[in-house]
């Protein structure tokens, strides 16, 4: 059996992506000319970690590139150069390139090698300039091949001066350290470059060869290192280890210099003379040299299994989303079972029924708490999405020659990971639109007496079981008259039709609608806002827009906290119960016969409601079930809306409104237009969840088919 390091690539890519986000955010926080030590250390750590990881996994290109970046950062860290706009630009571009390189490795995509080489050369040029006439060579990264062993560096480690500080490091590998691509040898090699190092190994846990799992690390180490003044230098070496080892770094002690344990081999191929290493009293290790002196059997037997790694101080773990979804699914099943039990109890009498009812009441409360807790596991702060905007706003405003300040509030507001992933692109569209069309140029703002720099405010907060995300700008606002004129020109509204401001502003969500006089590569092609709304509607949310001429606009997005649970209205048709998402329902009304117009020879029905004609969908016809009534004035009409289109769904009865746990039909059966999923009701019955946009498009395609059939019949008769 060989170990496949590829299984750990995913974690490396994920952690590197997060680290690059951190690097980018920290870079953007740097004010020109002044770099906080903490900031440069953070950035340096990212480059160093990615270099180490990529070298371990054999991504030589990334290791080489990050090594160059690390060299540049080291010059900043040591105060030899500052971060001017040029260096800032180089570093931000380097972040992009590292993302590209990682992505190319991850998805086996082609990489623009020339772009990488050009940028690397630019960085090297800065490094060379800062080093004067004789450029400091940038040596190749220490390890560029997995498992490779590079000889001791030519440059000897700085010798410890008498009285130098000596750090004591305890290194206890966890079981998976080696298997995850972390190699203590590589780490110790890096440490040895920081200063004079002595190594003491504890092999008490090393089992006989026959019992040894060769992919597991059984050895522990105690190191002493003289040299580095800063703890950060040590932390950076161990940075990539994460939770895979227990690392204890004790404050340095100042004492007489200690002779290194083993002599430097200097590349000798001859077995060295037995070199007595300083052995700690506690380290039960076989004594060297003579077989008679070997105490390994006793120590190993006494030691039994390898020593367990000390508890990690980390407070979080990385869990796959599949495991969490499985947990959520199981809890969903439990909720349904509990609901069924409660339903059974309704008509139950008997001496113990009261106790049982109380018990079920407790169970219900606990289930709700459990469900909320489990749902919270999938929740992530919206900062994961917001974090991309400082860079975007900086780049775009520079490109457009505008001054824009970004303000973000509520970044810690949490929402479901899936919602979070899908909200990113719509928000990007909105922010780009705000910068391009909303915020005026510096001159334009000056003319109307505004500060030169416009503001874009991203705000997030919870409200009534939903999350609200707002994109607010203090730009020119929407031009009401221009939108109206464009809508009339495109025939979206009648020439004399008057609309409320709300309706007018909503016209910008129409496909292809743009009032921009100039189409730029930033925005203005009219593709975007309709996609924004569609994406948000698909998430079960909605979007509103408010605007005030010369004062700016606010786009307000309301999103559900999760996609696993839905606020639904239960409706009954005959013996069947269906769930309509509450977010889609406008109102439910009783109608009178005279409000109905039949068109197309009685095949289609329209409800006249407040100057609107709304098509009616008889659910019993669509799903071919037996209804209580087929008379429209005997039942109820639930008016639903999607993408600006309304439709009346004819049902027998409205039942409760309740949160339902969504079960995917697609996973368990197949996708059906008009149905987004199913749920289990308290009495054990399955109810289909209606997909309103799908129903509307299904209704329209059926109407079109009927129309075509009629026309064909007419042609045939003629």
């Amino acid at each position: 059996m060989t170990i496949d390091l590829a299984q750990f690539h995913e974690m490396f890519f994920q952690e590197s992506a997060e680290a690059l986000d951190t690097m980018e955010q920290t870079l953007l926080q740097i004010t020109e000319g002044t770099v906080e030590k903490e900031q440069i250390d953070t950035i340096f750590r990212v480059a160093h970690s990615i270099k180490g990881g990529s070298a371990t996994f054999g991504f030589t290109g990334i290791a080489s590139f990050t090594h160059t970046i690390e060299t540049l950062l080291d010059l900043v860290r040591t105060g030899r150069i500052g971060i001017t706009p040029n260096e800032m630009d180089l570093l931000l571009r380097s972040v992009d390139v590292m993302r590209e390189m990682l992505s190319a490795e991850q998805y086996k995509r082609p990489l623009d090698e020339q772009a990488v080489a050009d940028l690397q050369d630019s960085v090297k040029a800065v490094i060379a300039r800062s080093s004067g006439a004789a450029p400091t060579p940038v040596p190749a990264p220490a390890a560029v091949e997995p498992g490779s062993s590079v000889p001791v560096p030519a440059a000897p480690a700085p010798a410890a001066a008498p009285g130098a500080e000596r750090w004591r490091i305890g290194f206890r590998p966890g079981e998976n350290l080696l298997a995850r691509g972390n190699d203590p040898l590589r780490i110790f090699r890096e440490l040895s470059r920081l200063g004079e190092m002595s190594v003491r190994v504890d092999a008490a846990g090393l089992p006989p060869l026959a019992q040894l799992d060769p992919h597991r690390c059984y050895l522990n180490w105690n190191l002493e290192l003289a040299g580095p003044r800063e703890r950060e230098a040590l932390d950076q070496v161990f940075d990539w280890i994460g939770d895979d080892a227990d690392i204890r770094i004790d404050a340095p002690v100042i004492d007489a210099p200690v002779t290194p344990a083993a002599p430097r081999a200097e590349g000798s191929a001859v077995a060295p003379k037995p070199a007595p290493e300083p052995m700690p009293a506690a380290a039960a290790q076989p004594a060297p040299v003579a077989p008679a002196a070997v105490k390994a059997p006793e120590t190993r037997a006494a030691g039994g299994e390898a020593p367990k790694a000390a508890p990690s101080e980390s407070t979080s773990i990385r869990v796959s989303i599949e495991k969490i979804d499985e947990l959520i699914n199981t809890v969903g099943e439990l909720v349904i079972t509990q609901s069924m039990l409660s339903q059974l109890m309704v008509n139950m009498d008997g001496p113990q029924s009261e106790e049982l009812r109380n018990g079920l009441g407790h169970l219900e409360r606990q289930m709700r708490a459990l469900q909320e807790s489990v749902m919270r596991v999938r929740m992530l702060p919206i900062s994961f999405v917001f974090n991309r905007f400082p860079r975007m706003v900086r780049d775009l405003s520079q490109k457009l020659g505008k001054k824009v300040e970004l303000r973000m509030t509520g970044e810690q507001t949490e929402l479901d990971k899936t919602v979070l992933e899908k909200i990113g692109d719509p928000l990007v569209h909105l922010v780009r639109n705000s910068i391009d069309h909303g915020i005026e140029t510096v001159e334009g703002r000056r003319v109307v007496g505004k500060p030169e720099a416009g503001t874009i405010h991203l705000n997030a907060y919870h409200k009534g079981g939903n999350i609200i995300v707002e994109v607010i700008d203090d730009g020119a606002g929407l031009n009401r008259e221009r939108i109206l004129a464009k809508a009339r020109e495109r025939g979206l509204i009648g020439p004399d039709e008057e609309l409320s401001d709300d309706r007018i502003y909503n016209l910008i969500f129409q496909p292809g609608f743009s009032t921009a006089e100039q189409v730029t590569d930033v925005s203005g092609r009219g593709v975007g806002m309709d996609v924004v709304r569609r994406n948000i509607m698909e998430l079960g949310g909605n979007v509103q827009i408010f605007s005030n001429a010369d004062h700016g606009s606010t786009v307000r997005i309301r999103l559900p906290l999760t996609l696993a649970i839905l606020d639904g209205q239960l409706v009954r048709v005959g013996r069947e119960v269906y769930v309509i998402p509450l977010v889609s329902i406008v109102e439910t009304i009783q109608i009178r016969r005279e409000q109905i117009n039949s068109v197309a020879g009685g095949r289609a029905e329209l409800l006249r409601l407040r100057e609107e004609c709304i098509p009616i969908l008889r659910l019993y016809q669509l799903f071919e079930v037996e209804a209580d009534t087929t008379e429209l004035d005997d039942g109820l009409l639930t008016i639903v809306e999607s993408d600006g289109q309304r439709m009346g769904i004819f049902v027998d009865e409205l039942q409760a409104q309740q949160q339902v746990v969504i079960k995917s039909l697609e996973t368990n059966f197949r996708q059906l237009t008009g149905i987004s999923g199913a749920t289990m009701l308290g009495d054990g019955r399955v109810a289909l969840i209606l997909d309103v946009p799908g129903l509307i498009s299904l209704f329209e395609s059926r109407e079109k088919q009927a129309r075509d059939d009629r026309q064909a019949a007419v042609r045939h008769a003629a």
Partner: protein
Amino acid sequence: MTTEDTPAAANAPRRVVLGTSCTIEDVAQLRTDLIGHLEANRPMIIDATRLERIDTAGAQLLAAFAIDCLERGTAFAWKPRPAALEEAIRLLGLGALMQSPGAVLDIEGAA
């Protein structure tokens, strides 16, 4: 890894030749091979001439092998210990564990 028996005598040293790589990707097979050699209960010469790459997993395996040899009283010697191996031994502090009882084996004679 290959093995070359010296045909002269049943108890003649067995030459165990390590490959170019002794890393976590190789250790499973190497462990199986080394166990086989141990069970032969003959003196061994570990020829690491070709060894270029070694990591902690590889060094740990060789250390466990060396200890097993010592415990069984199986004589063995390194011939030679290339730079990569020396560096691993030094940095991981395995010098004492990897000592070969050279006195019991005439390396040159076996080679």
